[in-house]
């Protein structure tokens, strides 16, 4: 019942606006800007990227099988978004794994209720031209197998809290990256610029990326961090951020700790910033690859996301596993006596 309401209101309203806007959308702004737009400046003369941004998208990282073009038409893009939004609002079937969840729409968390930049691309990956991740190198494949075996040796996901992912443990999420990619919801950021620094506050998990832009060297190679070591510089009106010094624990799409990530932040109009990143990791992929996603201006402020403090779900998950262990141990303990009573 209510999903029809959603289609007629949310999609009819928000997405109809997207349809209108999509005709003059980001892809055109990127390739052939119809009108000159000047990037505003901070008082000290830097391109001004400050403000609140949101990178919610319906576009997948890799181009879906069966799609053989770089861009949808505006009409196709709107149909794709409508269908994805309908799928997201769709009610799941009771008794299925997918149904064990709260309803996103009841909490305003479905993507159709987020600011959405127009994007006609069929994949976030723009290079290689087929929109797919390049093939893994032999070393990349070996590492993938080794990581899978290490996970197996560590036991099941509920055998130890360390076996839960970094995001479940509220340590690092994909919105933070880098590279910074949207999750299901709360894809909000605030950029603040000060002399020598750019700070990007990530709402989820409320972590600031503090990026020096004063020309200093990267951290020494022996110092590795989950988010790597980032250094920025201006290339015209584009903020370029190089990040190295990753750890083996982050592994973006299977990357190694030697990944060199280059992010480029370019404002293309008053409402849109183009975020493009290039992953260079010869020990994992046979060639570098790049992706881009438009960020849309959003309304602030950001709100606190004290994930760890309120992470009852992690406790409940482990408590549920221990309760299951206890039930199985009791069943196993009672089994021998049953066997003895058997004729």
């Amino acid at each position, binding site marked *: *019942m*209510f999903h*029809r309401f959603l289609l007629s*209101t949310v999609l009819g*309203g*928000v997405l109809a606006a997207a349809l209108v806007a999509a005709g003059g959308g980001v892809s055109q702004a990127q390739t052939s800007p119809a009108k000159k737009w000047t990037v505003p400046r901070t008082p000290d003369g830097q391109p001004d990227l400050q403000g609140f941004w949101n990178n919610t998208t*319906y576009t997948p990282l890799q181009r*879906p099988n069966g*799609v053989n073009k770089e861009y*949808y038409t505006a009409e196709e893009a709107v*149909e*794709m978004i*409508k*269908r994805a939004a*309908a*799928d*997201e609002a769709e*009610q799941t*079937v*009771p*008794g299925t794994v997918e*149904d*064990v*969840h*709260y*309803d*996103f*729409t*009841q*909490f*305003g*968390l479905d993507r159709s*209720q*987020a600011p959405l930049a127009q994007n006609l691309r069929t994949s976030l990956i723009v290079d290689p031209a087929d929109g797919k991740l390049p093939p893994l190198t032999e070393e990349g494949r070996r590492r993938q197998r080794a990581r899978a075996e290490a996970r197996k040796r560590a036991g099941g*996901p*509920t055998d130890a809290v360390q076996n*839960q992912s970094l*995001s*479940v443990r509220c340590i690092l*999420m994909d919105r933070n990256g880098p590279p910074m990619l949207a999750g*299901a*919801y*709360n894809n*909000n950021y605030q950029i603040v610029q000060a002399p020598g620094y750019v700070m990007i506050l990530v*709402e*989820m998990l409320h972590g600031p990326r503090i990026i020096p832009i004063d020309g200093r060297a990267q951290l020494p190679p022996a110092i590795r961090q989950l988010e790597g070591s980032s250094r920025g510089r201006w290339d015209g009106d584009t903020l370029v951020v190089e990040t190295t010094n990753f750890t083996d624990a982050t592994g973006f799409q299977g990357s190694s700790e030697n990944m060199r990530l280059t992010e480029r932040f370019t404002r293309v109009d008053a409402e849109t910033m183009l975020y493009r990143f290039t992953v260079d990791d010869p020990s994992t992929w046979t060639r570098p690859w790049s992706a881009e996603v438009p960020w849309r201006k959003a309304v602030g402020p950001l*709100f606190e*996301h*004290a*994930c760890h403090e*309120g992470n*009852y*779900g992690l406790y*409940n*998950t482990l*408590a*549920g*596993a221990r*309760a*299951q262990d206890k039930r199985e141990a009791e069943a196993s303990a009672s089994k021998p006596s049953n066997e003895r009573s058997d004729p």
Partner: protein
Amino acid sequence: MRTTFAAAIAGAAILVAAAPTRAHHAFSAEFDISKPLKLQGTLRKWEMINPHSWFHVDVKMPDGTVVPWLIEGGSPNQLIRLGVTKNTLTMGTEFIIEGYQARDGTNKAVGRNFQFADGRTLFLGGSAPGATGADKP
């Protein structure tokens, strides 16, 4: 109520973007798919916390005793952005909640669907049904 919606899309083959991970942890690891439940109770407290909010609901049993339950809902940040506050839902509001009980057997559940006693579905989101201030209890 929970029907499957099949969008009828005309035109060229347009593949739907894969939905991102629906939440930051596997809810089926926290809650038991074999323990669906339906509760009726009154709201005592709403913890608007992250990563997920929690509704404290008092459930009155047939013998008159009151049993407290904790019901998990969504992250509150988008709701706060849309103007929802901890005062938006009046304490004492009666809810009918369908969901699944926690795997550890305690009185916790995920709230699959929140309904008011008069049958309206709880929608706190900005552009969702029932989201306007006038529709809120």
